[in-house]
């Protein structure tokens, strides 16, 4: 298993099951949307998610009428669940663009079957993320005060504040992710338009496809634009969580004021994002029999990314503690070496360490990376762990500030939990709708993959690059 031939054997494993043609990949993926009946499991899942959306609506309605006092936030912890949820969701939203853009630039062919779906996940996660800072403002109908617009007060936003940078970063990220996703979808909705049998679907997809006809000139511009979008999205995705981390690192709170925050936040975002991709992709693969497209190699690769980013995050935790010990700042020391591991929130802290640093080590074993159930369970643990991480960072630092007379212990209230679970419902509802109405895997890119596989088989029949076992 540990022999030197192992990596080369792995790299020749298929990213697409053998025997597929342009027509079969197109038909199989488009059938999920166009031909298959809406299954009972879809309805059960959708209604469950939709129930949670209604929980969210009720929570928001109550919040609107009663104000943020319904939450657990009060002096000194003014950033409670809302900001924890914001950072958690925005982190999850990083995997989509990472998979789509960075892996595209690195020519990683295995990205093809998961990118569409991961991009959709990104959009929905960013939508959930955007909700929380808005409702946390209290008077959320004045959210546009964050943006520069001509106003009678002759005021501008505070340009030197990371919170304003954050508003720009997150809204840019949401916009660019949407554009990237839509551009990727254009050839596929054209396929759906051409394959749909009912008039309503033909018109609907026809409008979305904008008259795409696959002209060679169009493809040439399309490919350039798509590649440039990927090149633009790559630094963007890094910048977003960097700026989110500045929300903390530029403050002087002990436990926040640290230079390691940007890289460690970005790694954490990728960690939680890949965990969420696995959490969602594995059941989807099962439910729609997509094992031909999302192969064991995909699961294996994603598990490796999970392990690698998990190790970076662990390094971040170790360095935070090391800085505090080495740095001789009494407040930092108190917060990182005493309050976090042994204070009011020590149970949360140790749960976070257990979920983020310990459990993921199982993925060192190749057999574990191939065990779909195990990988799925680990991905859930990581999702929970990353939520706890943000909770620990935000709440422990705030609840014992520089003024001991104001120290307090923070706990989420019923409405905090209701809003959080409601946002999960919103995310899941959007995903269910997406899976039902749009192709979860890019058909155009899968056809390209078939083409490359054919070419490779023809050029060197004894060593097929992708379609292992396709030779006679």
């Amino acid at each position: 298993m540990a022999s030197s031939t192992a990596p080369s054997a792995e790299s020749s494993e298929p990213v697409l099951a053998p025997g597929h043609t342009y027509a079969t990949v197109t038909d199989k993926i488009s059938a999920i949307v166009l031909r298959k009946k809406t299954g009972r499991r879809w309805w059960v899942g959708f209604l469950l998610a939709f129930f949670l959306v209604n929980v969210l609506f009720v929570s928001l309605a109550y919040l609107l009428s009663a104000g943020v006092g319904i939450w657990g936030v009060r002096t000194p912890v003014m950033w409670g669940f809302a900001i924890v949820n914001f950072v958690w969701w925005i982190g999850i939203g990083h995997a989509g663009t990472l998979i789509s853009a960075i892996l595209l630039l690195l020519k990683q062919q295995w990205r093809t079957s998961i990118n569409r779906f991961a991009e959709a996940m990104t959009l929905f996660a960013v939508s959930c993320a955007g909700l929380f800072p808005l409702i946390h403002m209290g008077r959320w109908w004045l959210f546009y005060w964050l943006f520069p617009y001509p106003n009678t007060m002759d005021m501008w936003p505070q340009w030197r504040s990371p919170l304003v940078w954050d508003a720009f970063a997150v809204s840019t990220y949401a916009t660019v992710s949407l554009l990237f996703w839509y551009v990727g979808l254009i050839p596929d909705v054209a396929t759906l338009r051409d394959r749909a049998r009912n008039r309503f679907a033909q018109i609907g997809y026809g409008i979305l496809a904008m008259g795409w006809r696959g002209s060679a000139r169009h493809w040439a511009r399309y490919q350039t634009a798509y590649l440039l979008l990927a090149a633009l999205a790559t630094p963007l995705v890094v910048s977003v969580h960097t700026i989110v981390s500045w929300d903390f690192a530029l403050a002087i709170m002990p436990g926040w004021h640290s230079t390691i925050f940007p890289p460690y936040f970005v790694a954490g975002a990728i960690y939680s994002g890949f965990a969420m991709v696995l959490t969602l992709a594995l059941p989807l693969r099962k439910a729609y029999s997509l094992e031909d497209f999302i192969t064991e190699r995909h699961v294996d690769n994603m598990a490796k990314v999970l392990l690698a980013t998990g190790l970076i995050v662990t390094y971040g935790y170790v360095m935070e503690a090391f800085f505090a010990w080495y740095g001789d700042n009494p407040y930092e020391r108190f917060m990182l070496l005493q309050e976090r591991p042994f204070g009011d929130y020590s149970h949360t802290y140790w749960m976070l360490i257990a979920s983020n640093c310990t459990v993921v080590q199982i993925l060192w074993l190749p057999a574990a990376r191939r065990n779909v159930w195990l990988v799925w369970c680990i991905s859930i643990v990581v999702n929970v762990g990353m939520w706890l991480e943000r909770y620990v960072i935000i709440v422990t630092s705030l609840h014992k500030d520089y003024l001991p007379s104001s120290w307090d212990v923070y706990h989420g209230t019923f409405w905090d939990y209701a809003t959080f679970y409601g946002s999960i419902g919103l995310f899941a509802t959007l995903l269910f709708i997406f899976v039902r109405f749009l192709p979860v895997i890019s058909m155009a890119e899968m056809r390209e993959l078939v083409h490359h596989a054919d070419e490779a088989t023809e050029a060197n029949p004894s060593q097929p690059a992708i379609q292992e076992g396709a030779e006679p």
Partner: protein
Amino acid sequence: MKPQIEARNYGLIAEFASPEELLIAAETARREGFTHLDAYTPFPVEGLAQVLEFRRNRIPLVVLLGGLAGGIGGYFMLWYATNVDYPINVGGRPFHSWPMYLPITFELIILGAAFAAVLGMLGLNGLPRPHHPVFAVPGFERATRDRFFLCVMATDPLFESGRVVTMLETLRPIRTTVVPA
């Protein structure tokens, strides 16, 4: 089967089963001197745009301009707000504190360039365009699934029905169809 081609038609289109056949067909048509050609494929076929002598891909320029507009506009907005319109002296810090402008400038560069990429791609491609003559071709719906089409347009200076038909037939397409305008 000899389709009748008239000047008012859009052109003549041939359907192929593989990208390799389409590439050979496109090369042949180019060798024969045809210039008003287009091909329709279910995925980008490498080398096809070059064979069709498509060189004016101005997308990179458009994206550059979009990024510059976003970046310069963004930086100007920040500078104007803090130096001209509403200067505030905070602890003697300079009004033109440019390091603080960089995050937003960066985001606006990306935003401008991304919009330019998408709108530029759609605009230069002439999309959205709900109707196009080739959509009337029977079986053209497979251009987004598994078939590859080469179209010789009637606007081509060398376009003459008999010659085009003969050329296309030698390439052994699945079928050749007249595209009505």
